[in-house]
């Protein structure tokens, strides 16, 4: 009698290093289901102590090259809360537009380059480009991804690491005419975003994905009157509803041996899911009109507890991001440079943003000289690790008739559903499957 073991060493098409290790006993019972993130620890929370308040947003965006905006904006807001800094309406709008640009880039990257190859039977998007029928789709996807990047370049001076956004505002602002050029491109891109929802719904309706439903708590932000991106209250499908700065009290973490990341639970309850599916579930009524319409057209209803539907949720958010970005550009008009002004004060502050892959939490204490005394960081992927292991435990027994090769791919897809960034979680992916015969 031997175990059947699924082991993937280095999970492809995710960011960072991780592994999957699953052991299945002779009667199909799951003996072990672990997602091991071995991204090496970098000790941000330790070395930020003793650094200046304005270096915190600059440094924490370097935690993750895939969602730097989420980290940066959460940290900027936490520092501003700690020091009592108020920012202008223009700054708030520009920060939202900047973050929506990141969502467009990140969601397009995930849907077409990281997830779609699994559903369409290719090893990568580069291989997809080799198919003449798919080549135009790949080219359109790359051009939408570029548009998201161009929004970042225009507002922050670089695709990835922010050059202009600082505590109190921006060191430079884009001109109205440049913003309006972006708006024209967003308008042209909208049809492709709508087609993305249809594609997601089509591929996720193939067997066995519709059967893979598992109810768990979905946590996201929710803001009055607008879809959450840079702030709001923490809410969940199980009734959590608290101010975002209370996150350390409600979302609890513990360190797990053998894994360089921490496991997260909601206080008094169980593991939870963060990301686009949770956001759409908790905020469907706040999506743009067209985003709601296309969701209804493809039969997407909330709450949806099928993690393989996250590809649909990303498409829906792409449509919403394009609509909202155009509105933000209208409201911004012709931005004028405003010098960031504030006084350095001692204080404590916490803030949460919705990074493309889920809630990103930052906060800590700053002394009267503006030096950081303590900093707490919880990245979205570390919230999801524990929940993903529960997905394995629940879904793998339903898929035991598959060959090892197919089962391994399905396990990898369960990870890619979360669009993990393992640098964030301080880890990586690798699948290792072992069955007891």
């Amino acid at each position: 009698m031997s175990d059947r073991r699924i082991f993937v060493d280095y999970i492809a098409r995710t960011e960072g290093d991780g592994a999957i290790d699953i052991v299945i006993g002779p009667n199909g019972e799951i003996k072990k289901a672990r997602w091991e993130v071995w991204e090496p620890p970098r000790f941000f929370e330790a070395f930020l102590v003793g650094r200046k308040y304005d270096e915190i947003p600059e440094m924490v965006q370097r935690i993750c090259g895939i969602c730097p905006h989420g980290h940066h904006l959460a940290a900027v807001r936490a520092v501003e809360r700690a020091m009592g800094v108020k920012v202008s309406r223009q700054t708030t709008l520009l920060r939202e537009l900047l973050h929506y640009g990141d969502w467009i880039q990140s969601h397009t990257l995930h849907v077409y380059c990281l997830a779609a190859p699994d559903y369409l039977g290719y090893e990568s998007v580069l291989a997809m480009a080799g198919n003449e029928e798919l080549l135009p789709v790949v080219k359109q996807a790359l051009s939408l991804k570029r548009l998201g990047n161009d929004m970042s370049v225009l507002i922050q001076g670089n695709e990835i690491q922010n050059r202009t956004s600082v505590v109190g505002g921006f060191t430079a602002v884009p001109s109205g005419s440049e913003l309006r050029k972006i708006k024209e491109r967003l308008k042209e891109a909208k049809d492709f975003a709508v087609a993305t929802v249809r594609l997601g719904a089509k591929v996720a309706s193939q067997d066995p994905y519709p059967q893979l439903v598992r109810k768990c708590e979905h946590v996201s932000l929710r803001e009055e009157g607008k879809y959450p991106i840079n702030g709001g209250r923490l809410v969940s499908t199980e009734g959590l509803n608290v101010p975002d700065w209370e996150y350390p009290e409600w979302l609890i973490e513990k360190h797990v041996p053998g894994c360089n990341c921490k496991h997260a639970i909601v206080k008094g309850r169980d593991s939870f899911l963060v990301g686009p599916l949770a956001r759409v579930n908790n905020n469907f009524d706040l999506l743009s009109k067209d985003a709601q319409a296309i969701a209804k057209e493809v039969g997407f209803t909330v709450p949806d507890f099928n993690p393989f539907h996250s590809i649909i949720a990303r498409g829906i958010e792409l449509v919403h991001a394009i609509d909202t970005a155009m509105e933000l550009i209208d409201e911004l008009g012709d931005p004028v440079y405003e010098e960031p002004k504030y006084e350095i004060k001692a204080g404590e502050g916490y803030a949460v943003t919705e990074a493309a892959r889920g809630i990103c939490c930052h906060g800590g204490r700053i002394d009267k000289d503006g030096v950081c005394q303590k900093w707490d960081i919880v990245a979205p992927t570390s919230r999801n690790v524990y929940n993903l292991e529960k997905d394995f435990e629940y879904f793998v027994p339903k898929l035991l008739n598959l060959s090892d090769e197919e089962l391994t791919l399905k396990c990898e897809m369960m990870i890619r559903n979360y669009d993990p960034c393992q640098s964030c979680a301080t880890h990586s992916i690798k699948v290792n499957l072992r069955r007891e015969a």
Partner: protein
Amino acid sequence: MAKPKIAFFKFSSCAGCQLNVLNLEPILLDIVGAVDIRYFVMAKRENFEGPYDIGFVEGAVTSPRELMELKKIREECSILVAQGACACHGGIPSVKNFSGMTQKEMEQRVYTELWDLKSFPAQAIDYYVKVDAYLKGCPMDKDEFVTLVTSALKGINPLFRYHSVCNECKLKENNCLVLTKGKACMGSVTAAGCGAQCPSLGRPCEGCRGPASDCNAASLAKTFIDLGLSRDDVVRKFRKYAGNTPEFSKGAEAV
């Protein structure tokens, strides 16, 4: 000539430099067509063992496992490229080297179960192995990446600039942030190639590309004191993206 075999590896870092390869959207398919990508876990499921013609390494070395892998990668790659600030100079992960805490104190601050952690001071990859080319910056500059790949295809040395960011600021006719606004800009000691991205947007250079050739960091450190920075402020400036380098160490030790 056969297409060069290319590989991408990642150590302690944010993956932003690898993402910046995928951020070449308008020419991505052309670049991919001109080379043979044999190993790129972030983008592909099918990856192959070496040897490779060019290996790009992102990230600093902070663990025994990374060090072992780096040595193997060096043997497998004809040309080894350090990609981005972490691989070139230690980058943000190297800030921990100067935190004033011991490794154990840092571990205790972040984790509760310490027995499984294996981490040591963050170093650039050339601390351990020979490196053939450097793509500096945080993140690496995409255009320099393209220059490097096209140079390799032509069999020539890429032309990279090692003068300071100040030169690029002057070419852009920017007002100097130090002279006109009294801001603590690192541009005069930092290697050019970014097109003076930050100062052009009103943000002082933070030195993410590491030292320019023949830079005088000690003199700049004294200028910072004259501008009103505290001694700790100056040390923080020089111990950020390239604090490990002898050049920036001179700045940190001059005050």
